[in-house]
């Protein structure tokens, strides 16, 4: 299983904060996971349309889209941060 987390406007566009999915067949990295998510519905496609404004953390560390994804990972997708 993967634990998927969405924050800020990715959360509102996708319509949920968190979900658990089996590691999709053929998905080996973040880029592949995003491609698979885009096919799950209009909300996902909209949220993930422009990857210039999407950041990724795997197991709570920032990673590039080329980072591997394996079963058991916590993958978070969110916009550039605006705290402080």
């Amino acid at each position, binding site marked *: 299983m993967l634990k998927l987390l969405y*924050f800020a406007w990715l959360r509102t566009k996708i319509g949920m904060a968190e979900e658990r999915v089996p590691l999709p067949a053929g998905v080996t990295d973040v880029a592949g996971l995003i491609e698979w998510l885009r096919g799950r519905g209009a909300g996902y496609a909209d949220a993930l349309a422009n990857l210039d404004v999407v950041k990724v953390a795997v197991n*709570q560390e920032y990673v590039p889209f080329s980072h591997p994804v394996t079963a058991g990972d916590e993958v978070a997708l*969110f*916009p*550039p*941060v605006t*705290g*402080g």
Partner: protein
Amino acid sequence: MSVRVQQQDFDIGAELAALSDGDTGIGGVCCFTGLVRDLHPQAGEAAGTVRALTLEHYPGMTERQLEAIETEARTRWPLSASLIIHRFGRMEPGERIVLVACASAHREAAFDACRFIMDWLKTKAPFWKLEETDRSGERWVAARESDENAAGRWV
């Protein structure tokens, strides 16, 4: 060395006293407090139009990132003590959002480390601001290029 992510407000005087009390090798403490403003210039809103902010964050990763930033600061400068407090939840204009304080024997180190932590926090700590404005309703604040530039200065 301490990081706190919390919903409630903090008491700057008490926090600074706790930071330096008992360590008479400290010569200076630099402290930055971030407050909720009632305007958001990038979006062209006039003063008084932001009614509130809601700070969303990524529990777990937030603390890890803030601890990593604080550790990096303590690697770069000789700090006697440091503190990061960041609030989440809904806040109105004038409320305190964040406190960063760095104590050192030397004022240069205290100033540099405090600014470094703020700059890195702005671009690395997983917080997102949702504004409630008079004109546009709710809106997610966009990241600022100037924050990226400020953070890049320390590489």
